[in-house]
């Protein structure tokens, strides 16, 4: 009995956003990465081609992280002390994009130095995040933007109370920004409008809808992402941006991943649990439409790349 499959046809599509610039385009990256371009819900290959697969990024730090789980510090070893070495190791571990998170202890000089060192050690496109305090972020990211003019970095995070300085720095120096809103479709949309109103083209914005880890609010992020993607496909232009999710950051602060002692026996093996926590959070968010997944553990990177490879099989 021939079954007629209902196929969705959408009026809208996701914008393509390219990270990194090679020498031909005024940068020094060995390659560029393009995400977005979808015209259907994630991996519905029977409806439409999926032009750009999601990519995996690895988060590294400008200084040795003091509060990371030993599962993570054991995986990276001495590379933790040197952003350049760490960047090279991350590239070897399969990262397609690097995320350098600056520290509150950084000065503009040390931040620029760390960014330059990472750019020198790896040809991958780079995302640079401030320490997450509005004034400090601006103090560090503006000189970084200027010192790397033309590299097409993504700078973050732009939030509703602090986006102007970053957006201006990105505009002036040929970079992208990451727009983060707290798990809310309308707030995401509003921030994208504010940023494009300043004159930054929408194809230089990545949207971070904020996510929670497995067990710590993943369902909110998951549903907001599904709703953003549906709105985008229905034609709402200010939601038609690729989505980046900071899965490693969220999951490795969860007790299940971070801690091995004094936890219930029913939680099972610590290392494997931590890897599940990170990779299953990421796997679920892939289904919801994530375009860039930022992870911390190299083994999770390997696992999520398997998931992406399989999800992109069109047979």
């Amino acid at each position, binding site marked *: 009995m021939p079954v007629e499959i209902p196929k969705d046809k959408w009026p809208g599509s996701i914008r393509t956003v390219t990270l990194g610039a090679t020498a031909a385009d005024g940068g020094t990256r060995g390659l560029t990465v393009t995400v977005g371009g979808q015209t259907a819900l994630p991996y519905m290959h029977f409806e439409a081609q999926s032009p750009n697969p999601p990519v995996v990024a690895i988060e590294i730090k400008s200084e040795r992280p003091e509060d990371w789980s030993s599962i993570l510090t054991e995986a990276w070893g001495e590379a933790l002390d040197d952003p350049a070495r760490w960047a090279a190791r991350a590239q070897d571990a399969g990262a397609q994009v690097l995320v350098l998170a600056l520290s509150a202890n950084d000065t503009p000089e040390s931040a620029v130095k760390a960014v330059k060192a990472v750019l020198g050690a790896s040809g991958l496109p780079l995302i640079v995040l401030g320490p997450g305090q509005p004034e400090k972020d601006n103090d560090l990211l503006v000189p970084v933007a200027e010192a790397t003019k033309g590299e097409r970095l993504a700078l973050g995070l732009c939030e509703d109370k602090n986006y102007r300085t970053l957006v201006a720095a990105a505009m002036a120096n040929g970079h992208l920004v990451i727009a983060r809103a707290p798990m809310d479709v309308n707030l995401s949309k509003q921030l994208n409008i504010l940023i494009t109103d300043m004159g930054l083209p929408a194809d230089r914005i990545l949207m971070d809808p904020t996510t929670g880890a497995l067990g710590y609010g993943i369902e909110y992020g998951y549903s907001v992402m599904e709703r953003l993607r549906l709105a985008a496909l229905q034609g709402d232009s200010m939601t038609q941006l690729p989505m980046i999710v900071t899965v490693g950051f969220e999951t490795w602060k969860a007790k299940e991943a971070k801690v091995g002692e004094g936890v219930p026996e029913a939680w099972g093996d610590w290392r494997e649990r931590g890897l599940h926590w990170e990779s299953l959070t990421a796997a*679920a968010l892939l289904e919801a439409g994530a375009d860039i997944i930022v992870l911390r553990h190299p083994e999770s990177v390997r696992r999520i790349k398997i998931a992406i490879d399989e999800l992109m099989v069109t047979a």
Partner: protein
Amino acid sequence: MALSGIQIYKLLPQTNCKECGFPTCLAFAMKLAAKQVELSSCPYVSEDSQQQLAESAAPPIRLVALKAGGYEVKAGNETVLFRHDKTFYNKPGLFIQVNAADGDIAKKVAAADAYSVTYVGLEFTVDGFAILADGDLGAAVKAVRSASKRPLILIGDPAALEPGLQACQGETPLLHAADPSNWETMADLAKKYQAALVVKADTLDELADLTQKIQARGVEDMVLDPVPAASPLSQSLAAYVQLRRMALKANFRPLGYPIISFPAATGDPVRESLFAAQAIAKYGGFVVLSEFKPELLYALLVLRENIYTDPQKPIQVQPGVYEINNPTPESPVLVTTNFSITYFAVANEIEGSGLPAWLVVADAEGMSVLTAWAAGKFDAERIAKSIKEFDVASKVSRKRVVLPGHVAVLSGELEEELPDWEIKVGPREAVDIPAFYKQVLT
């Protein structure tokens, strides 16, 4: 699709005979549409109408319940494609597979059966066991039954399955699987032993053919295994989405059944975890895991709970003062919100540390600390109000209150609201509370 009152009215005799107890057929039709009366109250409705009304009342995805020993594992009856549209109802059952030929079968089942884990105050267990008939299934079922009463999935060909079915009569197990080559014998077995039946085919066309033939042979409770074993994740995702859409959008009965998944088909444990997560997020009904591994099981149980939480009702705890580890008037006061995940994260940390504390749970409309703060539901005024309303001052001799680190910015305002209290800023994450407590509060 459910019919409206007017559509139902057209199928009724329209004689207003009042024998149903309502003044008119239209009034009765409205009550039927609201599911407040039974159609059997009408003595004159035609057989044809009865059938149409019964079909319209059936859910688009059939509810299949596996039963044994007082346990019931249900799948189906779902009504939406996206959880934000309403909610997902029946959590996919997580089954652990064991092999009939395995000499340790009872021991393995006993370990998994005893498994219990707590998450935000809820207790989770495995849902049942799948037994592969690679040996004497009758003996294997008896061995499993010596260790667990939970529902069973029996996997094998018809000849191997029957001794297993004889060993669990009175239960509703699930048989795997009817395919184009054996469906008649499998259907007869399922009917004879009142079992539910997995129907397996490589394409949806074949699958729809088979379910109709099997239904015509008298089996109603079916479960679909719609993709070849070890298909790539994109193929299982496409098939599961297509099945859900066919059922909900096209009301296509031959595919309106729950789905079973075998994530371990390739033997790769990484792939097993990824596929199981996908099945939980995207429309799986029963998920069979290859072995009992607590670290994977716990992660999947939490994912399942998260995805199946009703998005319209944030899980909340009652605002108030919670006493943890028998606090005294000397013990510190900690503040958090009434979002259940937040509350349990904080309460579990304090409890685990063994240190006594008063935990004030402010009414933040069920939001987490950061979200509530951003939404204006967790500010200095609200925190001060909670502390006054719950009369915390009467419980302590030393008035000091610890704010979550994420809302450190509120400490100034809170000092103004609570002038005789000492305000301290705690860590951002619950996991760091015990260390903070030991360093700063003692």
